[in-house]
């Protein structure tokens, strides 16, 4: 190839580059959305859920507190409830979502309080969404950040930005998804200001057969949250005794939670 021909080829390629690259980028975003949908779908039960959650909260200069709670979910109408069983001071306290409202019940005062959905559960660094079904594809728009090695795993990294009009606890999330299994490995949540607030690790995923879905579903058996503002604080969540059998119809009611609080 002579010099003139080479320059002409480079010039042609340079001019064509944006047109060639554009479909590639669009495809990449769609790919990210697809990955997110798979991440959500693998955890979707399409039925009822009952599990025991152990939440350990560690704070600087304080004794670590371990909470034990029962978590109930119903996919059909996005119902959700947490009932604390330990320690004694928190026994009987509970959160119940009815429609779009999260309610908190404290048996010591016998009153229900409306709380924001983005509230810290039991004062720990966990949120309602950490115990609920994954809705990342519904709530966020993803952006490809390439691949990254996380130990032995190759992860797809993406930045998720909250969709307009939705009230989300974290407006920006950075996600590391296992390329092979599509399980979330790591997650970082940012404030509106761009400051990193929380880093989460998902070291253990467990599968369980769902009768309602007629397929295996996956759930994180262990989640570790590290507070990035108060560096010394961390939260560990262990999810055990998962049961996907249908729950009684009256479980997601204030009366039921109150009766269990007595």
């Amino acid at each position, binding site marked *: 190839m002579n010099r003139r021909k080479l320059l002409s080829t480079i010039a042609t390629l340079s001019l064509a580059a944006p047109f060639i690259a554009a479909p590639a980028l669009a495809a990449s975003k769609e790919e990210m959305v697809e990955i997110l949908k798979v991440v959500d779908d693998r955890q979707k039960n399409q039925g009822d859920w009952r599990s025991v959650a152990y939440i350990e909260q560690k704070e*600087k*200069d304080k004794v670590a507190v371990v909470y034990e709670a029962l978590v109930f979910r119903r996919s059909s109408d996005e119902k959700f409830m947490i009932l604390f069983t330990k320690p004694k001071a928190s026994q009987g306290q509970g959160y119940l979502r009815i429609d*779009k*409202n*999260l309610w908190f019940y404290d048996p010591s005062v016998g009153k*229900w*309080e*409306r*709380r*924001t*959905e*983005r509230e810290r559960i039991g004062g720990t660094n966990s949120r309602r969404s950490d115990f609920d079904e994954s809705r990342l594809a519904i709530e966020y728009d993803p952006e490809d950040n390439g691949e990254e090695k996380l130990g032995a795993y190759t992860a797809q990294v993406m930045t998720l930005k*909250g969709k307009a009009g939705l*009230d*989300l*606890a*974290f*407006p920006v999330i950075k996600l590391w998804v296992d390329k092979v299994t599509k399980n979330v490995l790591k997650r970082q*949540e940012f*404030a*509106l*200001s761009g*400051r990193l*607030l929380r880093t989460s690790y998902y070291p253990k995923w467990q599968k369980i057969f769902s009768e309602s879905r007629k397929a295996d579903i996956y759930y994180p058996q262990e989640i570790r949250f590290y507070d990035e*503002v*108060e560096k010394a604080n961390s939260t560990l969540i262990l999810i055990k005794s998962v049961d996907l059998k249908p729950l009684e119809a009256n479980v997601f009611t204030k009366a039921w939670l109150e009766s269990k609080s007595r």
Partner: protein
Amino acid sequence: MDSLFLDFRIALLSLFEHRRRAFFLGAAIAAVTALLVLLNGLSNGIRQTLVDTATTLSTGHLNIGGFYKITSGTAGPVVTEYAKVRDIAVKALPEIAFTVERGRGWAKVVSDENAMQAGIGGIDIKNEGAFKQVLRISSGNIDDLAQPKTILIFKSQAEKLKVKVGDAITISAQTTRGTANTIDTRIVAIAEDVGLLSQWNVYVPNEALRALYQLREDVTGAVHIHLKPEFVNNLAPLAARLREALEKGGYRLMEPDPRAFWMKFESVTREDWTGQKLDVTTWEDELSFMMWTLNALNGLSFVLMVILIAIVVTGIMNTMWIAIRERTREIGTLRAIGMFRGGVVRMFLWESLLLGILGALSGAILGTLIAFALNAAKISVPLSVQLFLMTDTLKLAVAPGALVFAVVLISVVTALAALYPALRAARLKPVDAMSHFG
């Protein structure tokens, strides 16, 4: 008239005649009056300090605050389009001296070493002359609060967070829509503690607070209304007039609730409404959580006053009984030379009233002087007491009205205490009295 003057003269001479006893009794009355004046000065001083400090740091004499609810489950302590609200207040209340706008928030304040929950006050330091006078800055420059993303904290907070002027502090909170947000601020001033309020209040420029909560320019936390001094003691009718004016202006108002704004979050969040509702509060409402200290002090003062008066009454009656016993023959002689029973009563009443007035006046002067001396000595109060007094030194405020009250009360009580012994003396028969040996 002449007989009245005569009775008064006899009483005066009698006091002089028995000057030793009169002196001791007068001294006791003076001591009790001085105690009463000091007690009242202490109670009044604490109240005055509390009002002065609190109405500068965290509340106006009256406040227009309220909540804005985007959804029925999320409440933000804000007043939207506050300039309109302020204009209505200024028009409705000619008693207003000035107003200031303060941002309100509740957030986590985090340093590299520690963290704490704190009330975030948004201020515009250029318009806050009194604020600068009330706070004593231990390090830094309070005027630097005019710079963006700066913060003023208190000494005990600086110790807890292990920070100094120039260090960075992150404030973390949820916006009114519940989204996590942070701002990084630089400490420009550390103020000396001012009691309980300095345990949980920090101050940032209004712009920083708006950035944290993603609020618009025309949004503030509350309009603090400061009244001319002559109107600060009668807030209820002014608050009622303000509420009426705001309602006429088309605003929805919350039911009167004598609690601080941060104590209302729970009930407001439970209520099923959206949009803006305004709330008119007094400084006493905003400090309701610490008003018990004033009420307890007032209660204690009352109990002590009753005890002191009981002591005066017992002392006077006892002394009068002794005087009558000693002067029975004198009474008999006065009656024999033509003094009526009423004259005898008046004579003894004049005596005790004169003694009461002289003793109470001396006591009032003594109490005032002691109060001045204690104020000049700037006596430090223990830390636990500072928390409630919102000052580090003891301050006694002796009001002229309280002085007059103490003098009149003690004088009248002294005179009344002598009434019964005087009546008994008047009932003596001249013959029996003259032949009395005791």
